[in-house]
C-alpha cells in the first residue's frame, strides 16, 4: 500500500469510529459525561467512564459520526475549544479518582472557524498539552483513523501512543502540504509520501509504540484483541508511582 492508500483508508466512511470502539470494548458499562463546564458540550468529543475487566477507566474519543446526519452534528470530528476543555475536565477527573485514561483519536484537525478562534482554540490545545504532561494517571492514546496535527496531539500527550495499521498522523493534511509545496492541492499522493504519516513510518521514527493490525474481519477480531492489550498495558502502568509515570512521559517527548 502507498502512503496515500493509507490516507484513503483512514478517511473511509465505513471505518469504525470512536463510538464503535467504545461500544465494542466497554459495552454497556460506558456512561457518557457531557460538557466543559465553561461554554458548551462539543459533540466532536465523546467522553465518559466505563469498566475494563471490572476496573473503572475514563474514555475520551474524537468522534466523526457514522452517517451524514451524525457527521453534521459532530462537526466531522473537528473539535472546538470546548471539546478540548471537556476532554481535559474528564482527564482531571480521572486523575482525582485514580483511574487511567484512554483516548481514541480520529480527526482531520481542530476546527478552523470564527467561534473556535474567539474561544481560544490555540489556548485550549496548549493547556491540554501542558496539563497532560503531568497528569498523575496513565494515559493511552489510540489513533483509529485520522490524526490531524495539533487537534490530534491535544489527546495524545500519552504514556503510549498506538496506531491502527491504516491510521495516519500528520502535522499537516496532504492537501495542505501539496498546495504549499507545489501550489497544487491535487498532488496529495506525493505529499502523503513526503510527510511520513503512516503507522509504519511513525513507528520507525519512534513516535508510536505499537501498530494494531487490522484483520480482514475487522468486526470480530479487532476489538477483543485490543481490549486485552489495553487491560494488560494499564496493569503494567499501574505498578509505576505517579512521579515515575510522569517522569517517563516527560522523557518520552523530550527525546524528539
Amino acid at each position, binding site marked *: 500500500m502507498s502512503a496515500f492508500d493509507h490516507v484513503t483508508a483512514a478517511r473511509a466512511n465505513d471505518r469504525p469510529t470512536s463510538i464503535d470502539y467504545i461500544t465494542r470494548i466497554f459495552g454497556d458499562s460506558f456512561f457518557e459525561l457531557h460538557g466543559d463546564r465553561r461554554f458548551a458540550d462539543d459533540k466532536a468529543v465523546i467522553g465518559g467512564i466505563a469498566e475494563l475487566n471490572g476496573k473503572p477507566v475514563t474514555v475520551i474519543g474524537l468522534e466523526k459520526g457514522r452517517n451524514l446526519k451524525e457527521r453534521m452534528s459532530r462537526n466531522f470530528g473537528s473539535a472546538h475549544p470546548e471539546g478540548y476543555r471537556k476532554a481535559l475536565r474528564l482527564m482531571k477527573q480521572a486523575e482525582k479518582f485514580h483511574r487511567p485514561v484512554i483516548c481514541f483519536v480520529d480527526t482531520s484537525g481542530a476546527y*478552523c472557524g*470564527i467561534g473556535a*478562534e474567539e474561544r481560544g482554540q490555540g489556548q485550549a*490545545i496548549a493547556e491540554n498539552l501542558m496539563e497532560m504532561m503531568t497528569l498523575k494517571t496513565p494515559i493511552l492514546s489510540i489513533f483509529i483513523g485520522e490524526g490531524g496535527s*495539533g487537534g490530534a496531539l491535544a489527546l495524545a500527550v500519552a504514556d503510549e501512543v498506538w496506531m491502527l495499521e491504516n491510521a495516519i498522523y500528520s*502535522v*499537516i493534511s496532504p492537501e495542505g502540504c501539496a498546495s504549499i509545496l507545489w501550489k497544487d492541492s491535487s498532488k496529495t499522493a506525493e505529499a502523503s509520501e513526503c510527510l511520513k504519516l503512516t503507522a509504519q513510518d511513525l513507528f520507525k*521514527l519512534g513516535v508510536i509504540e505499537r501498530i494494531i493490525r487490522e484483520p480482514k474481519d475487522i468486526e470480530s477480531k479487532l476489538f477483543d484483541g485490543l481490549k486485552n492489550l489495553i487491560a494488560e498495558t494499564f496493569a503494567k502502568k499501574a505498578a509505576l508511582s505517579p512521579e515515575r509515570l510522569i517522569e517517563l512521559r516527560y522523557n518520552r*517527548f523530550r527525546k*524528539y
Partner: protein
Amino acid sequence: MPDIFNFLKPKNELENQGGFVENHPYIPEELWVKCPVCKAAMLSSDLMDNHKVCLKCNYHFRIAARQRIEMTIDEGTFTEMDAEMTSANKIDFPDYEKKLKSAKLSSGENESVLTGVGCINGEKTVIAVMNSQFMMGSMGTVTGEKITRAFEYATDKRLPVIIFTVSGGARMQEGILSLMQMAKTSGAVKRHSDAGLLYITVLTDPTTGGVTASFAMEGDIILSEPRALIGFAGPRVIEQTIRQKLPKDFQSAEFLLEKGFIDAVVERRNMKDTLARLIRLHPDTMQKKEVAADERV
C-alpha cells in the same frame, strides 16, 4: 545638489529591489522608508530611533531577533545559548536543505529562535526570541530543542523566562517531529511553572499555528504588541473553511484582549520597562524560603 524631492524616489527603488514584499516588510539601509500600512515616508534613522514603529500610524515593523535582544536586554549582559545548533533533514523532505540554506543566508541566523540569558533593567532572565526571517519563524526540532533547553536551564537556575513569539506555526518539512515539539516545549514550560517560576510571553506579528497552540499561550502573563495577528488557524485557512470574509480586526491583539486571551497590549517603546516591572513583581519566594531555612540552621 540634493534633490528635495528625493523622498519620492525610494518607493520605486525599494519595490524594484523587492524591498516590500507582501506582508513582509523588510527595512533596507536606505535613507527613507515607507510604512507598509499608512504609506507614510519617514527617515530611516527616525524610524530606528522610534523602535521601528511608524511615526505616523504606530505600525510596529517586524524586527529581527537580534535587534529585539538589543532593544530588550541591557547592553553587554547577553550570553547566547546553543547558538551553533542547526537542523537536519531527518525525514528526507524534498528541498529542505535548500530551504534551510537560504533561510540561514537571508536571516544570518542558524535557526528560527535565538535563546540566552541577560538582564532587563538589571533583572536577570532567560530570554528566547523567534525570528520571522528564518522560515517565517516555523517550529522545527531545533527550535523546540532550544526553547526546551532554555526552560530547563531557567528551572535549574531559578530564573524567569521571557519569549517573544513570531511564527507561521509548525515546520512542515520536519513532519511529525515538528508536531512533537509542541508537546516537548509544553512539558518544559510545565516543569518551570510547577517550580513556581515566572514565564511571560510577548506575542508579536504574526503568531499562529503550533506555536500559538503550545508555548505562546502557556505564559503566566501574556503580552502582545499592538495590532499583531494572533491565532491558531491563519485567516486564509479560516476563510477557505467557512467560505466567508473575516472581519477586519479579527485575530488582532486587541481582539484577543477583548476575548480574554491576553493580559495586555504593550507598545514597543514601553516593552522593556514593562517586562522589568513584571519580573520585579515576582520575586522568587521559594528560593528565599530555602535561604531563610538555611539561616535558621
